[in-house]
């Protein structure tokens, strides 16, 4: 899969983490966009061509799950990887709507892995 030209939208209200994720994903070769709220995320998705969204759940204003619903309404095939400090929803909603559910950690290996997998799956589907 060519990482080149893949745009990732990070939806996260904690700015330090936005910085961290931006740096990390850029290092991987992605183009990184950021939104610090659900509303801004929706706007971004409509303005820009986004290939994948990394979504935090607990945010001010529109919470993560609602954002997820809205994002999917706008683009029903948009891959979303939930990245949340809350492990509870992993078995609840994770399987539905989102491509993957990652529990937020200082170790970003799993997140990066899930992102990669999701993008790969999307490519395969589009190719089919």
């Amino acid at each position, binding site marked *: 899969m060519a990482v080149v030209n893949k745009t990732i939208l990070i939806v996260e209200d*904690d700015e*330090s*983490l936005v*910085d*961290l*994720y931006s*740096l*990390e994903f850029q290092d991987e070769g992605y183009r990184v966009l950021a939104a610090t709220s659900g509303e801004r995320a929706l706007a971004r998705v409509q303005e820009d061509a986004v290939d994948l969204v990394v979504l935090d759940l*607990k945010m001010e204003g529109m919470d993560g*799950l609602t954002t*997820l*619903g809205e994002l*999917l*309404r706008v683009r*029903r095939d948009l891959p979303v990887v939930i990245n949340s*400090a*809350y*492990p*509870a*929803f992993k078995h*609840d*909603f994770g399987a*539905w*709507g989102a491509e993957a559910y990652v*529990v*937020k*950690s*200082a*170790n*970003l290996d799993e997140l990066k892995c899930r992102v990669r997998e999701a993008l790969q799956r999307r490519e395969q589907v589009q190719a089919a």
Partner: protein
Amino acid sequence: MSDPLPHRFCTPRSRAHAARDLDPAGQVALLERELADLELLFRVVNLMHATLDPEHIARITLTSMTAGTALGMNRAAMLLVDEEAGTLRGYLAVGPQSREAAQEIWTDMEREPLPLEELVRLALGSAPGPGDAALSARVKALSYPIAALGAGPLAKALEGAGGCFEAPDVLPAGLRDMFDGPSGFVVPLRATERVLGVVVADRFAGEPSASGERLALALEVAHQAGLAMGNAQQLNEVRIRAAQLGTLHELGKHFLAVQDLGWSLHMLVRCASEVTSARAGVVWLSGEKGLQIESRWAAGDAPASAELDAALIQVAMEATRCGETVLAGGPENAGAHAGLGEGRSVLCAPLLVRGRVIGALAVYDHIAMGSFEPSAFDRHDRQFLGTLADQAANAVENLRLMESTRQSEQRLRETQALLLRNEKLAALGEMSAKVAHEIRNPLAAIGGFARRVTRSLGQSDPNREAMELIVRETERLERILSEQLQFAQLSRPRLQMEDLNKVLGETLQLLGPALGERKVRLIKRLGPDIPPLLLDPDKIKQVLLNILQNALQNVSHGGRVRVETRRLPEFVEVDVANDGPKIPGEVMERLFVPFCTSREHGTGLGLAVADQIVREHGGEIRVRSDSDWGCVFSVVLPLEGNTDRRRHVADRRSRSRTDRREAA
């Protein structure tokens, strides 16, 4: 038992009549004798008036009859009328058993004739002499039905006329053997309006006519005795009545003051027992299983056994059945209540409140106080128990109601305390969860950047070790947080009052895209009167999600899905129906069995988990197929109570066909 009027039984000639036949000297002698008699009578009456005890009066009477310095008869016995039983019963006797013993007494008397007062004092003070006791015992065993006395001397005496007899065969059997004369008399104990009994006395030595001479005085003594005993009896009755009324009053006050049902019942049964001179008492209250013993009391060691209790409860049931105080057992009613045991009598009154039986009160084993009291419960006792029961019934019912109200209040308080505790726990859990989450983000940032820095350092960089330490420590912190969160989750009950329609709405929203994708028409019928339910919203969302997922997988492109909520008398029902193909029976049965799925994707856990969650909420999931809708899931949640009805996996596999599927 009827004797023809015997020719040997004569009534006294009046003295006046007798005096006319005498000369002046004779008349003087007669008058002197009369004076002596009057003086004697005076002394006897004095003695009688010094006491209010009927037994003492009886002893005084009989001692007067037999004292040498008084009437000088040899033997005397008193028999009393038992009005309730209609019998004349032997009460007391004084005198020697045999002539030989009598000889001794006379010899003694001639040596030192004791005055009447002295003899009476001796008679009242010490135990009766052996002669007296034996005679008394025999007399006490006598009992004659009054109706059967015919026209004999006893019958005449009961009508108020005393008389002499010169041969004992005029007496009924029993007395006949003891008072074999050759002469004697029978005199009535006349009280104000009735005859209380008779005194029979005889002489077995001396002239036969001596009895006749003594008869007039004997009549007077007996009359005085009758009056005195009548008064004593009345006084006794008044005393009893006063005591009973006093007790009723005390008890009434007590019932008003004390609010403890147990204590009140105890006082009730004790009071009833003591006032009726019973050895023991029992009180029952009506419960679900009929009458149950609530309290019992006994003076000292009263016998208690299963047989006794069974017999007692029979009496109680009879009393409650006919709504009246019932007397069972005792010497007269022996046959009817055999289970009670030898000679035992039971008095039982029902406790009625506005005609409704709430229990029963019984006393048993009447204690005879002295020989004057009957050995069974009498009409006074019966009346008293009845009144006591009536008064107590209302009070007991009130106390019972108060008690049950108190218990309800107690349960309510306990439930409130529990809810409060749960809320606190929930708050606590939430707080620690919140704190943990607050920490997670900064920790992720710290750790993340530390890793970046570490990666940028060379192998031999002096700072590498320090950076690696930082990374390790952040990992450790993350682990701690994870554990903390897991624990917080466990101890946090997430039940809260939720609007089911709202939860359903939110779930449907999430599914919007998926529905759109398959061009499914969603029919939503949310009942307007669904009350808030105590549930875990996230878990219920999970349930609905899993079921909807299942429905979506079954529905064809362009098909319909119906989601409906409705309120039933005791439940709320959520229907999720799809118009896909009818699900075959075997598949329907296995729907909820975990890991059992015909689908490629999914673990086959979805519906099993949903089932478990619904059971946790005290509800049920049912599935059916009907003509319009290929598959209808019904989630039924109770309106009240959230008893956990989870089953283990093993149970599920053995469920029968009929359990799940409703009739199509």
